[in-house]
């Protein structure tokens, strides 16, 4: 079956623009995670959903970052008033169970803020 998909794959935004990144997890996966990966770094946790509930948003770097998963399936990560330091690859992952389960990653969205 299909794996985790993300769109767009690449996004270029001017500083100050708002962006929305989409994640389609594997069907039936309860858990969904967002990570930010800067160049030369490992994935950094942003937020975690269990079905539609956002149980942990402690990794969101500022109130410009907002995530939702309203029906417990597709998720959207929104970044308002983008800054240059937001440039990174944004990874989405899903798992059947919780954080102790294998995570299946999407291909990522590369965001470049000019």
């Amino acid at each position, binding site marked *: 079956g299909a794996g985790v998909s993300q769109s767009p794959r690449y996004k270029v935004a001017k500083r100050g623009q708002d962006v929305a990144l989409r994640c389609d997890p594997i069907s039936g996966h309860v858990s969904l995670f967002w990570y930010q990966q800067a160049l030369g770094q490992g994935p950094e946790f942003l937020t975690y959903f269990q079905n539609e509930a956002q149980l942990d948003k402690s990794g969101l770097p500022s109130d410009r970052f907002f995530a939702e998963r309203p029906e417990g399936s597709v998720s959207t990560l929104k970044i308002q008033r983008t800054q240059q330091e937001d440039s990174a690859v944004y990874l989405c992952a899903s798992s059947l169970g919780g*954080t102790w389960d294998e*995570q299946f990653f999407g291909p990522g969205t590369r965001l470049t803020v000019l």
Partner: protein
Amino acid sequence: AQRVTQPEKLLSVFKGAPVELKCNYSYSGSPELFWYVQYSRQRLQLLLRHISRESIKGFTADLNKGETSFHLKKPFAQEEDSAMYYCALTRSGGYQKVTFGIGTKLQVIP
């Protein structure tokens, strides 16, 4: 706070030589450790986790709680092992966010 340390950003070995990718962690609870791998132009995927005690593609990793380490080993490196390897840590049972290390790029020289 939990932390994962991968001291080598790049590890180069010759084909057929043994490989050891180091991972040390800092965590006060009961840890669950993983190794994820990213091959060129592919997405991040699970290689192995300590609880399963499996050998995947010839790789093994043993959790050493005394040394707080989870090093990844393979006795004979293959060219197809060239990739980025990330060590990851979470809590065993219950919720805890997953913390990834910075990653080690393994380069197997033919």
